[in-house]
């Protein structure tokens, strides 16, 4: 297993947001965590990236424990998060945003090649290179956020709500690019509210409800499961 | 609720005992220490007055050197030049302080300045106030003003230092009572709401500018009266002592140690810090007492960020919960 989350419980202050969560992601896999608002998806990602310390439980990456590391060391290991709401640096231009993405220890010697690669994947970014990130459209911002993540040469890419606030056409474009990446061997762990898009793209999925995992399995099985159909697909 | 009021009763009993001790104390104290305690009471009074606008409304307000200066200089100038009794002059000083506070406050609150800019403007105004006192001949410039001793009730000057002591004590008790009353009334609740979230307070219909101005006016009024008392106690004022930024910083630090926005915070903070400071100043070295203040404040903030009174209250609550009666 590349990533192994074991029995994680975490929250803020006296509030517990996620309880006893365990999940696994294998090399080259695309795994989705599905759940509505407040289910604890973003908290899970913040714990994996080290921004929030778990109350209990452990996280392993290639068999080594991550839980005690400071966030920047977790990034240096290649666990790269593209956060919810994109969290770009709005007053910096596109290039500076991308360069910041590619400054971790593993990626910094590879910046020029990475830049070329993300421009191939998202040609519009090259056109916007000297524009401030805050002035881009929503779709372009999501592309920049994803590209910034790729600049970091991820060994596993954590995508937090990549479809959030985007028009259907733009969602399709982003996910096409992600499909290409995954085919090339990129491991993806994604949290999403959009159940249809998730199950269409990911191989496996976990369903998160009120901070706990209530269901898991291959996307094919989940899409045909009556409970999923009723609760999430509205059919 | 019942437990709460029991805690309150304990606190008030403690205060009563403290008050009785303080009332009997002058018979046992040397003149120096009686004088020192008169000054301690003045600072309890000032710090409590600052706490209305600074602690309860949560402003970083440095305007008080102006208010204190207005009180001290008005009564002294009137007394020296025109023979007007300080009992009358102090109200002119208070009126000037209120007007200055309202004008500066109105300008700043209306434009919705962020806390920091407001704090800086206050510091700037206080600095300007100090410069005016330095430059204006009527105010004695840097030489200051000396009040010739002429004991008499009408001159607010007393033969024995213990009279100042009791007057200071009375002022402190009065001020704490006023703060207690404010904290239990509409003004106090509104100030707390404004401190917590000014935008939200405005949204639920609190006229935030009006209540901040009201708090500032009350604070300015009483600080100025204290300024007159200061001048009569020391019988000498100059820009560095009467329009002093160090004084307001001391007041803020006393509140910080005791607990911002709590009624008893300024009392506890001043009663702990100032006597320690005075011992150090008298028996170790002048100037060293400010270092002690600084160190104590830093220690308290690092260990108990909200001050001693809230810390003590939460401790008492805990022990009560652990041993249900």
């Amino acid at each position: 297993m590349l990533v192994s989350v074991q029995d994680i419980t975490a929250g803020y202050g006296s509030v517990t947001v996620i309880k006893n969560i365990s999940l696994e992601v294998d090399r080259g896999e695309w795994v989705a965590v599905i759940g509505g608002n407040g289910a604890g998806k973003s908290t899970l990602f913040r714990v994996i990236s080290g921004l929030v310390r778990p109350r209990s439980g452990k996280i392993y990456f290639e068999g080594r424990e991550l839980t005690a590391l400071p966030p920047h060391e977790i990034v240096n290991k290649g666990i790269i998060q593209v956060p919810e709401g994109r969290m770009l640096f709005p007053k910096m231009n596109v290039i500076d945003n991308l360069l910041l993405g590619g400054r971790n220890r593993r990626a910094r010697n590879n910046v020029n090649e990475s830049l070329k690669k993300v421009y191939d994947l998202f040609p519009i970014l090259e056109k916007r290179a000297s524009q401030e990130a805050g002035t881009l459209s929503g779709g372009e911002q999501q592309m920049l956020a994803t590209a910034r993540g790729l600049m970091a040469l991820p060994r596993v890419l954590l995508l937090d709500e990549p479809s959030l606030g985007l028009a259907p056409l733009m969602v399709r474009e982003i996910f096409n690019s992600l499909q290409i990446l995954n085919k090339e061997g990129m491991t993806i762990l994604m949290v999403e509210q959009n159940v249809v898009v998730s199950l269409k793209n990911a191989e496996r999925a976990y369903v998160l409800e009120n901070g706990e995992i209530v269901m898991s399995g291959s996307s094919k099985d989940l899409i045909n499961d009556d409970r999923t159909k009723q609760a999430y697909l509205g059919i | 609720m019942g437990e709460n009021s029991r805690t309150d009763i304990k606190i008030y009993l403690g205060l009563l005992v403290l008050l009785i001790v303080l009332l009997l104390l002058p018979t046992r104290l040397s003149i120096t220490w009686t004088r020192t305690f008169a000054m301690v009471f003045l600072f309890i009074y000032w710090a409590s007055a600052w706490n209305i606008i600074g602690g309860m409304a949560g402003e970083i307000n440095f305007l008080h050197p102006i208010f204190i200066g207005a009180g001290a200089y008005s009564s002294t100038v009137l007394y020296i030049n025109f023979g007007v009794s300080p009992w009358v002059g102090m109200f002119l000083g208070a009126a000037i302080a209120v007007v200055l506070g309202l004008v500066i406050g109105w300008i700043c609150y209306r434009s919705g300045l962020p806390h920091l800019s407001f704090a800086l403007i206050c510091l700037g105004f206080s600095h300007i106030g100090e410069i005016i006192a330095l430059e204006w001949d009527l105010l004695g410039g840097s030489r200051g003003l000396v009040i010739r001793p002429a004991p008499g009730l009408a001159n607010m000057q007393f033969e024995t230092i213990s009279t100042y002591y009791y007057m200071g004590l009375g002022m402190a008790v009065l001020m704490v009572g006023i703060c207690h009353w404010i904290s239990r009334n509409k003004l106090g609740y509104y100030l707390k709401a404004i401190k917590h979230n000014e935008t939200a307070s405005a949204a639920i219909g609190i006229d935030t500018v009006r209540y901040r101005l009201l708090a500032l006016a009350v604070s300015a009024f009483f600080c100025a009266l204290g300024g007159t008392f200061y001048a009569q106690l020391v019988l000498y004022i100059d820009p560095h002592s009467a329009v002093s930024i160090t004084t307001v910083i001391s007041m803020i630090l006393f509140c910080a140690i005791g607990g911002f926005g709590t009624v008893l915070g300024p009392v506890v903070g001043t009663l702990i810090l100032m006597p320690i400071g005075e011992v150090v100043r008298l028996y170790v070295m002048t100037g060293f007492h400010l270092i002690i203040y600084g160190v104590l404040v830093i220690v308290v903030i690092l260990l108990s960020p909200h001050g001693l009174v809230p810390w003590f209250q939460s401790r008492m609550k805990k022990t009560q919960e652990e041993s249900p009666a």
Partner: protein
Amino acid sequence: MDITIIAQALIQGLMLGAIYGLIGLGITMVYAITGLLNFAHGDFMAIAMYLCLALFTHFNMDPYLSSLIAVPALFVLGLLVYHFLFRRVLKAELLMVVQLTLGMVFIIESSLLLTFTADYESVPNILHAVRFSLGPLSVSGSYLATFLVGGGAGAALYWVLQKTDLGRQIRAISQNKDAATLMGINTTRIQMIVFALAIALLGLSGSLTTSILTMEPYMGLELTLFAFIVFVMGGVGNFLGTLVAGYLLGIADAMGSLFIGGHLGAMVPYGLFVLLLLFRPQGILGAK
């Protein structure tokens, strides 16, 4: 009023302004990435100046030479103060931080008073008596050096912020700290370095101005006030605005002492600040 006198004052103002900008830039950088406001900022400059005084009285060392000691010494002092104090109040409310630093003001000012007495002091440097003339205008060597080194340091720092990886990291933290962390930036380390750097800049400013500004133990709070004014005037958190505001304040200061003089003249910068805040509360270059 003779035009050369005005020009003379303008030059002098620009030269002092370089230092105001430098002091303010320290505050701006620290605020941008930690949200901390240090009311003892100016007192650290006073420490640097008194360090130069001590080195001068005991070893006859020129203040310019002393800067080689003052800058690293203040950098280390900054690291220590950050590690033991500021780091612990990063998440506290603003009022707490204000008190903590006001406590430091008392400690530093009283320590200086006890060590060096309340006497006014200044330390001459090698360029103090040298005057450079251009036509009718003439300027003292120490002012010119202050301008060149101080202004140069300000400009260099601005370049670092805009063009280097360190600068990009600093700007990233100031725009979104969590996102910066997710880029693999060690935010804790950068915050500590920037704080120490801001204090080290005061070491430089202090050793440059020992012959220009009169030293006294309580000077720190007024320097802090000037630094804050520059910080707010420039548009809170705006690096370029801070430098511009520094020069503006320097000119206002020089004009005030030229046309009005004395204590009243010293009020001109505050007056300018109050006016600016009333009509443009977001500062010169700040966005609304």
